């Protein structure tokens, strides 16, 4: 399969259309939703860039934490949730909070990189 234009280029093109052409012609509620739409595309662009490496790192950390291997970060996260729910892991578990912090920082770098709580976490 070709990638010219790439997914990134297509999204950038649509985002530029919303920002420069569509949004200036809209008012009220529609203008608000155009801004939300543009922000959503910015999220997708960050996701394309950040997710592959961040999710691989998350998976490696989960495997170390759980002492097992898994098909995906998602499947391992379900196991981690079960360990927390059953009381096998809690705040005192070595490595748990640092892992969750790294994962959440990566997630927010995609979702809401300007969020105040992210700055607090970095301090």
């Amino acid at each position, binding site marked *: 399969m070709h990638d010219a234009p790439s997914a990134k280029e297509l999204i950038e093109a649509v985002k530029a259309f919303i920002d420069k052409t569509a949004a200036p012609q809209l008012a009220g*509620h529609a203008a*608000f*939703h155009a801004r*939300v*739409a543009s*922000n*959503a595309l910015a*999220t997708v662009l960050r996701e394309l860039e950040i997710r592959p490496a961040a999710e691989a790192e998350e998976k490696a950390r989960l495997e170390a934490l759980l002492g097992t291997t898994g098909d995906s970060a998602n499947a391992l*996260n*379900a196991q*981690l*949730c079960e360990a*927390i*729910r059953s*009381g096998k892991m*809690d*705040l005192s578990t070595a490595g*748990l*909070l640092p892992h*969750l*912090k790294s*994962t*959440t*920082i990566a*997630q*927010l770098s*995609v*979702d*809401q990189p300007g*969020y*105040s*709580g*992210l*700055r*607090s*976490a970095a301090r």
Partner: protein
Amino acid sequence: MGNGIEIEKPLTEWAHAHFGAASRVEGLKRLSGGASQETWAFDVASKDTTHPLILRRAPGGVAAARSSEAVSLATEAALLGATSKAGVRVPEVLHVSAPGTALGESFVMRRVAGETLGRKILRDDEFKTARTRLTRDCGEALAGIHAIPTAGLVDLPRSLGEDQITKYEAIYRGFGMPRPVLELAFAWLKANAPTPAAPVLVHGDFRLGNLIVDGNGLAAVLDWELAHIGDPREDIAWVCVNSWRFGHSEKRVGGFGDLPEMLDAYAAAGGARLTPAEIDWWEILGSLKWGVMCMIMYSAYKTGADPSVERAAIGRRVSENEIDLINLFEGLGRHA
């Protein structure tokens, strides 16, 4: 429903009865697009006075669309009356209209001058003085609300900390989207639950956005639809949740104040003497609840109930609450 034609006539009839036959309804304008109720701003001009007013109304005048936990508009109006009598700053209610009447289920209250937008209150120069007073004002208002005898009050739902954990955990599990940080918060809250305080009237949504602030400080407490009988610490913590600090994380109370100052004002005004550490558990519950609420709003997109981009995108805000929870866990026992 979106235009004012159907309510202008009954509103004018009410104005004639209340302010005299020469009065006129002017500038009727829908303010919120809220699904749970309509909010309309209007003025009544009578002789040489203009009365700025607000109409709160069930959508189309029918109460069916309100969420199960929200109290009815009549209850909200009764609460405004009771809290006003107790000296809490709230808008004065002038009229309550029953379902089936021309206005439909609704009430009319005075429109209090001031600002509700958190970002403006925290940033604009005109609120500089207000910001120095707001922390004490909030402590005093909450002490006033929590001191209102519940015995003579309208019937309200009862929801203590434990009830809320049960409720939000069931919703979270129902989504089948495991999120380890939320899982940890549920488990930690259950393992560390404080002894429940004596139940009081809790506002339920006391935070920037629902407070009218003028140049002098807190002018009115709005949005009583989540009022319930519960733990007073819930209200104190909710205004501290980082989602409501609008970027000013360094100030724990709403982005404008320090918690010890609010707790001092709360105690001086008759509330219990509390420490910031006693608020931690409730702030963790608050961040967790808001995270699950973001998931609820996203689920409206996922199920097709609301296909808007906004509902889809709000699912990417859950991680905000997750970092807040992690910051709270890291800070446990660390602050004064």
